[in-house]
């Protein structure tokens, strides 16, 4: 006698217990502490904060631990927690010109005010396995020379330097831009989306997805002649204006990476030839993401700048509708869920179509 499959509840409980066990791994090995993740997996923490849209190193570290190092899963955990948080205030725009710089490179000028600051980068490492790190203790790294952090000093952005000469487009609201930035966590995305909305979507968009799209623009799918005007990473102050005070107060510092791409623009009837901008910003150190974001931001401005729309990376509805890895991961993986009912419907249809096909063949053969 056939008995329908039952016991979903017990199966789920068991799956959760197995998951917990696998996450912990061999109990003879000490458990990973959040401090260790926070201090030694910093770039993973940075990515989870950026795409999770929440600047909290402790929670990001916890999410990474809980997700067994699956960063997309960790991003999902952080997002789901974020939505339950009260919204206490809206910050003033951060001023990256007043950043306490830890890294700053420009590909457009050999030297410039504030200088080039190489900082902590993989760029010139030879990608050779460092077997010293495999040793139990790796506490004997040579102490490095750190320059005095420049406090309260303004380091002008390259784009601002070009702006003084009128060589680059001013950053002003355009047609369709709303006075206040939108908020994609509080309003559904609508198209056409203004630039603030696009930038928010890109900022929490999947790094790998943006990287691929950005790369496609460099290979001719919507080429836009980019130069890395500047990439800077460091700490910026976050300020709010409390209703009862009426002036800005600093509530803390965050680390951000900012990329300003400079792109050629031939000019139009209305506008003289000048450079245009693409912008990228991430929490923490996220250069790959910030640069990819800046390239995609610029390519999504094609329509506004009167360029031909020919490439996927120029198609705002396509790019923005698919850049969120929490949405994409959920929907791709929902195919694991039962679809017996729909599949049964398809079976009935395909069988009927096949019967019809056979009948037709038989009649044709008989004639």
């Amino acid at each position, binding site marked *: 006698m056939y008995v329908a499959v039952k016991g979903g509840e017990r199966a789920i409980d068991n799956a959760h217990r197995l998951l917990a066990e696998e996450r912990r791994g061999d109990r003879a090995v000490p458990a990973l502490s959040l401090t260790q993740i926070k201090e030694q997996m910093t770039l993973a923490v940075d990515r989870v904060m950026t795409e999770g849209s929440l600047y909290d190193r402790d929670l990001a570290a916890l999410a990474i631990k809980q997700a067994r190092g699956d960063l997309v899963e960790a991003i999902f955990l952080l997002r789901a927690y974020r939505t*339950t948080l009260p919204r206490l205030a809206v910050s003033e725009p951060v001023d990256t010109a007043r950043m306490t710089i830890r890294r700053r490179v420009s590909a457009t000028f050999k030297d410039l005010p504030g200088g080039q600051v190489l900082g902590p980068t993989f760029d010139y490492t030879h990608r050779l396995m460092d077997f010293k790190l495999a040793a139990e203790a790796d506490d004997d790294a040579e102490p490095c020379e750190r320059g005095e952090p420049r406090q309260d000093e303004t380091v002008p952005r390259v784009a601002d330097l070009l702006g003084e000469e009128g060589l680059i487009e001013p950053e002003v609201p355009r047609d369709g831009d709303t006075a206040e930035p939108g908020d994609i966590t509080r*309003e559904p995305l609508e198209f056409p989306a203004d630039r603030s909305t696009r930038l928010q979507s890109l900022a929490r968009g999947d790094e790998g997805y943006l990287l691929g799209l950005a790369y496609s623009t460099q290979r001719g799918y919507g080429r836009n002649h980019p130069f890395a005007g500047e990439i800077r990473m460091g700490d910026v102050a976050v300020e709010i204006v409390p209703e009862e005070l009426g002036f800005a107060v600093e509530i803390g510092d965050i680390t951000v990476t900012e990329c300003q791409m400079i792109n050629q623009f031939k000019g139009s009837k209305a506008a003289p030839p000048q450079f245009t901008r693409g912008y990228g910003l991430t929490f923490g150190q996220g250069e790959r993401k910030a640069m990819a974001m800046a390239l995609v931001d610029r390519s999504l401005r094609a329509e506004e700048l009167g360029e031909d729309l020919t490439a996927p990376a120029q198609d705002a509805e396509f790019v923005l509708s698919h850049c969120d890895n929490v949405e994409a991961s959920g929907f791709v993986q929902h195919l694991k*869920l039962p679809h017996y009912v*729909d599949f049964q419907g398809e079976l009935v249809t395909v069988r009927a179509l096949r019967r019809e096909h056979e009948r037709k063949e038989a009649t044709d053969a008989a004639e």
Partner: protein
Amino acid sequence: MQPNDATQAQDTLDGYNFAYLDEQTKRMIRRATLKAVAIPGYQVPFAGREMPLPYGWGTGGIQVTAAVIGPDDTLKVIDQGADDTTNAVSIRRFFARTAGVATTERTTQASLIQTRHRIPEAPLTEDQILVYQVPIPEPLRWMEARESETRKMHALEEYGVMHVKLYEDIAHLGRIATSYDYPVRVNGRYVMAPSPIPKFDNPKMDMMPALQLFGAGREKRIYAVPPYTRVESLDFEDHPFEVQAWDEACALCGATDSYLDEVVIDDAGGRMFVCSDTDHCTQRTASREAAE
């Protein structure tokens, strides 16, 4: 054993609001549902929140249920018609923990039914609300991927492409090949995706006494079919709409009028058919046994 009465929830989750969502989010969703009811079949955009369950796994239905549900409700959750599929269990537990509501597997005892891919076989009443989980709310999506375009098409009532698509099937295959998520027209105006229910269930939507709410979390849309509202499956005069039918009866309860799941019983092509609606099947089996 089938529980005859609703199960009271235990161990509700501390530290979270009733039914998980904060009150402002609930109000936003509630306002959207009211407009959805007032514009039958029209997809109302809403600021969908990130839920602690993955997108594509019912976050739209869960948000609608969370906004609608109250302590007096009795909740039933089904996936593919069954209460015991893992995702249905997971969602039912979520509300038992966050809202402390009673849950049931009995269609007739539920005041609120969240479903994925089926409408229960038992007729629903005015005292019930059916909440559908919707993956792709836009019925025109397969003909036009762009929301900016489909929105215009709905505004202008330009549904020619849908008929062309269905007619192409007839031209190529001699019949309409859509077997689930079969498009409907609501109250003679909006073309609507009924969610991936089999077309077998489409006629149940027409003039249903219960309110039907649809939630698409990832796509951030809510829509509704009010009670006693015309829901017509699109068709052609020479090719009228028809539903699936089986030569077999349910192997467990003998039903010949329910939607059947096909079960593979051996590796020699053996098949059997059983009701997809597990409560329907259990109730029929129980009443048959009682009669014997």
